[in-house]
C-alpha cells in the first residue's frame, strides 16, 4: 500500500481524484480478504471520518440511515426497531458482537456476499441506497446493487446512506439459518415486510438471501402473503424460488428444507408483530 487517505467529507474524498482508490469502512470483510495481499501501489481511503455518512433519523416520512452506521447501532436504534424491524433483526444476528461493533450497513451491502444479512432486509423494506460520486448522487434500490460477490456500483461510487419509507402501518421481519445459533454465516435467510390487513399481509415484499445473490425477490411469496392460507403457500413459493435459482446444486435440498422452517418461523414472527401493533 502506498497511500492511506482519511478524508473528513465526501467532497474531500472526491477531490482526491485518484484512480483505483479502494474504500474501506468497518473493514470486517475487507481486512480479512486483503491481509498480506494488498498490491504495492494500492491506495486506500478510510471512510470512517466522514460524518455525513453517519446518523439515523426520521425525515419527511423516510428513515435515513447513514452507510457508516454499525450493526450494533442499527439494532439498538429505537427508530430502526420501529420502522425497519427486519433490519434490526438482521443486524442483531449478523456475525459476532465484535464484528457487529465495527461492521457497517453500507459495507455489508457493498461487499455483496450472497450470504449477507442486511441486503434482504433492506430490500424487503424497499430501501434505496443513495449512491454518491464525484459526478453527484443517484438513488438505487438495494436489490439492484448487490450482485454475485460483486456490487453493481461504478468505479468511484460509494453508498452514502439508505432511505427507507417510514410506514408505521407496516411490519417486517428477518430470519436466518446458519451452522450455529450465534456467530454464524447464513446458509439461508429471508426477510419480509407488509401491511397487515384483515388477517392478510398487503403490499408484501419478500426477499431471500444466499441463493446466488444476497437479495432475490420472491413474487410468488409476496402474492401468497396477500391471500389466505399463507402457512401452506409460503413454503411452496420459497422452495420453488430456490429450485429456480440454484437448480441441481447439491445444497438445494437442504436449502429447501431450511426454507420450510424459515417460512414457518416467518409466519409466526409476523403474526407476533402484528399482534403487538394492534
Amino acid at each position: 500500500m502506498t497511500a492511506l487517505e482519511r478524508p473528513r467529507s465526501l467532497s474531500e474524498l472526491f477531490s482526491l481524484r485518484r484512480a483505483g482508490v479502494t474504500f474501506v469502512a468497518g473493514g470486517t470483510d475487507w481486512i480479512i480478504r486483503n491481509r498480506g495481499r494488498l498490491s504495492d501501489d494500492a491506495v486506500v481511503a478510510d471512510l470512517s471520518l466522514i460524518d455525513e455518512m453517519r446518523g439515523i433519523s426520521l425525515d419527511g416520512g423516510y428513515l435515513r440511515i447513514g452507510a457508516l452506521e454499525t450493526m450494533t447501532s442499527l439494532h439498538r436504534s429505537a427508530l430502526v426497531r420501529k420502522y425497519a424491524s427486519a433490519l434490526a433483526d438482521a443486524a442483531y444476528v449478523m456475525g459476532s458482537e465484535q464484528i457487529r461493533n465495527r461492521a457497517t450497513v453500507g459495507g455489508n451491502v457493498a461487499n455483496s456476499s450472497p450470504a449477507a444479512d442486511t441486503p434482504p432486509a433492506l430490500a424487503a423494506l424497499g430501501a434505496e441506497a443513495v449512491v454518491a460520486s464525484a459526478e453527484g448522487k443517484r438513488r438505487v434500490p438495494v436489490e439492484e446493487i448487490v450482485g454475485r460477490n460483486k456490487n453493481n456500483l461504478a468505479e468511484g461510487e460509494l453508498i452514502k446512506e439508505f432511505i427507507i419509507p417510514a410506514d408505521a402501518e407496516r411490519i417486517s421481519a428477518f430470519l436466518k439459518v446458519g451452522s450455529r445459533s450465534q456467530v454464524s454465516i447464513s446458509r439461508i435467510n429471508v426477510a419480509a415486510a407488509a401491511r397487515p390487513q384483515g388477517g392478510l399481509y398487503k403490499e408484501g415484499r419478500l426477499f431471500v438471501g444466499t441463493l446466488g445473490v444476497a437479495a432475490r425477490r420472491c413474487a410468488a411469496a409476496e402474492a401468497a402473503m396477500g391471500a389466505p392460507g399463507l402457512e401452506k403457500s409460503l413454503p411452496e413459493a420459497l422452495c420453488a424460488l430456490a429450485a429456480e435459482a440454484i437448480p441441481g446444486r447439491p445444497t438445494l435440498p437442504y436449502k429447501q428444507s431450511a426454507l420450510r422452517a424459515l417460512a414457518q418461523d416467518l409466519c409466526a414472527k409476523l403474526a407476533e408483530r402484528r399482534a403487538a401493533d394492534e
Partner: protein
Amino acid sequence: MNKEDYKYIGRCVIREDAADKVRGAYDYLADSLPQDTLVGVPLLSSQPNALVKNIDASEAEKIEGVVVLTFRDAPENKYNSGEWFPGQNDFRDESILTGHARHVGDRIALVLADDEKTARRALSKIKVEYEPLPVVADIEKAEEMAHFLHEDGEESFPGKLRYGDVEAAFAAAAHIESDVVCTQKIHHAALEPHCVLAIPRPEKVIELHTPCQIIFGVQHAVAQVLPLPLSKIRVVKANMGGTFGGKQECVFEPLCAWAAWKLRRPVFITTDRGETIAATRTRAAARGRVTTALDAGGRIIGRKFEILMDAGAYLTGTKKVMMVMGKKASRLYRVPALSYEGRVVRTSTTPAGACRGYGSPQIHTITEIHTDLMCRRLGLDPLRFRLDNLVHDGDKDLGGASDIGRARVIECLREGAERFGWCECREPVTSADGRFVTAAGFACCTHGNGYYKTAYHDVTRMSLRILEDGSAILRTAIHELGSGSITALAQIVAEVTGIDVSRVTVTEGDTTFSSYDVGCQASRVIYVCGECARLVSEKAVKLLCTKASELYDAAAELRGGSLVAGDKEIGLGEVVRDIMRKTRCSIDVSCEHAPESNPASFGVHFAQITADKLTGLVKVGRYLAVHDVGQSINRNFVEGQIYGGVQMGIGMALCEELDYGADGMPKADNFDKYHMVNAPDMPEVEVMLIEDEEPGGPYGAKSIGEICTVPVAAAVVNAVNRALGTSLTELPLTPAKIAAAAKRQ
C-alpha cells in the same frame, strides 16, 4: 489419612499462570524471540498430489534479507513424525521438504526473512510449477492408487489382534448384529498455531524451543535430519497455547532445526490458522465395521472389527492409533472372543496423527453407536444391555494388557442414569407441529493410564530439592499442555511435605537438565508422573527427617509444614539450613518410577437434545458427564477438562469436519468453514465424579484429560437417532444429513 484431612488434594488451587493468561500477559513462544532471529513461513503446496517442476523464487529473493530454502536444498532423509523413541521403526515416508507434494499443505520450501511480514510478502512472490498426478481422495480406492502418491510400493499398513475362539462364538450366537460407523477427520483447533524456534549454539549444540508434548521425542526427530548425537540436541518445552494432540508429533521441528543449523542463525517457524489446518495433523478418519455375537440372554460372546483408517498423505502415527483402537476394544465390555483387523491407507489429504483420545473416540464411537442400534433392532434395553456386559472391578483384560483395575463404570452408568433421570427422558417427545423432537442418549467409554503392559515402555524420573527457606522445586520432564498438570503436581508435593503450595515450583521439560520421561501422552501424567511426584516428595521428607533426627538427637517428623523433633518445633527453612551447614548435605533427592499397573479410567455421558427436523439443527440441552477418576487432585482442573472434552465431542458429533472435494481440495481453511460448537450453543455440563481411589495412582488419582471427550459423540448421536428413529452412522451429523434423514422417516 482420610480424604477430609487433605489440605491440597481435591482442592481448587488456582494455577500460577491464570492471572497472566486472563490478562493476555502470558509469554508464549512467539512473544519474545532472540535478537537476530530469522522468521520462517512454510511454502505449502496448493496441489493435492503433484510433482514440483520448478520453483521460481527470484522475485522473492530480491527483497532484502530474504532466504528461500527449497526441497532441492534439503536432505532427503525419510522419517516418521509419530516415532518418539529410537528403534520404534515406524514406517518412514516423510521428509522435511518435498518435491512431490502429496496434499494441499505439503511443505515444499521455507521462506525466511527478518520478520514475518517480509517473509510472507516474499512467499507471495514465489511461483511454483506443478505437474499434477491423480488425486487419492477416496479411502476405499487408496490401496489400488497408492503408487500415484508414494514411490515406496506400500499399499496399506495392516494390523491384527485376536484372542478367544471367535469362530466358535459366532457359530454359537443367538444373534449376530453388524454396523458400519464412519468418523471424520478433525482439526485440533488449539488457539496457538504451530510454531517452533531453533537456535544454533556453540560446541555443536542445536537448541529447540517448542510447545510440544514429548521433548525426548523431538530430540529423536531432530536426530533424523541432523548428524548430531542426542546429547547435542537440546529441546526445551515452550509455553503452550493448546495442543489436544496436534503438537504431539513433530511437524516443523526437524525442518526448523535443519534450517537454523544450515544458516547458523536462530530460526522461528510460524504458521497462521490456514497453514496449521492444512499442514499439521488431524484426528484420523475411520470407517469401522463392528459385528457382535450375542447369546440368547443378550450377553456378548464375540466381537469382530474391520477398521479402515485414513492416515492422510503420510503414515505418521496413524498405524499406532489404529492398533491402539483394537487394544481398547477389550476393556469396556466383557468380550470373551475378539478379532480386530485394521488397515491404514494413505490419501492425498492432510496427515493424521495424535488427537485427544488417540483412537479411543473413534473405537468407542463406533461401538457405542452400534450398541444402541443393535439394542433397538433386537428390542433390548440399551441401559440393561450395558449393565449386563460392562467390565467389573478387578477384571483381567483378555486382550493381554494390564488389568482393568478398580473399575467403576457400572456405578457411573447406574448412578448417572438416576441423576439424569434417564427413565423419564428416554422416550422421544415431539412438538405439537411435529417439527421438533426432544430425546436423550448416552454412551460409555474407557481410556488408559500410561504405557505399562503395552508395546511401549513407561518410566519417569524427577528430583525434588527443599530449599534453604523451606520452599521446594520439583524438577520434571513434563509438559504443561494447558490442563494444569504442573499445578496438580505442586499440590501433590505440598500435600506430602506440608509446604504451602504457593512455595512449590514445578519445572517443565528441558532435555539437557531433566531426567527422562516418556512424554505427555497416553493419559499418563497424573497416574504415572503424579505418583512419581508423590514418591520423590516422600523420599525428600524421609531424608530430611533422618538428617534432622541425627542433628537434633531426637525422633523427627514433619507436621503441618514444620519439623517436630522431640519437644521442639522448628521451621522447615531453619531445619534445612541447619542440615546444610552442619552435616554438609542438601535436601535433594531423585526418584524413578516405572508403574506396575495401567488401570482403566471410565466415563458415561448423558445428553438430551432437541432436533429441528427442517433445519437439521440440534440443540444439546441437558448434559451429564459421569467419570470414574479415582480421586481428583484439583476439582476445577477435572471439571475444566470435562467441559472442553464435551465441546470437542459435540463438534465431532454434529459439525466439525475437514472435508475434501473429489479433486482433493480441502473445503475448509479457516473457522468460517470449519464449524466448531461455540459458547452460546454449549449445554450446561453437569459433572459427577466417582472417586474410589485407584491403587497405584497418587492419592488414588487416574486420568481424565483424554477420556472426557471419548463418549460425547456417541452420546449425542445416540440421542439424535432415538429422536428421529434414524440409524445415522456417518459423522458428523450435519444439518443437511439430519434434515434429509428426518424427511425420509
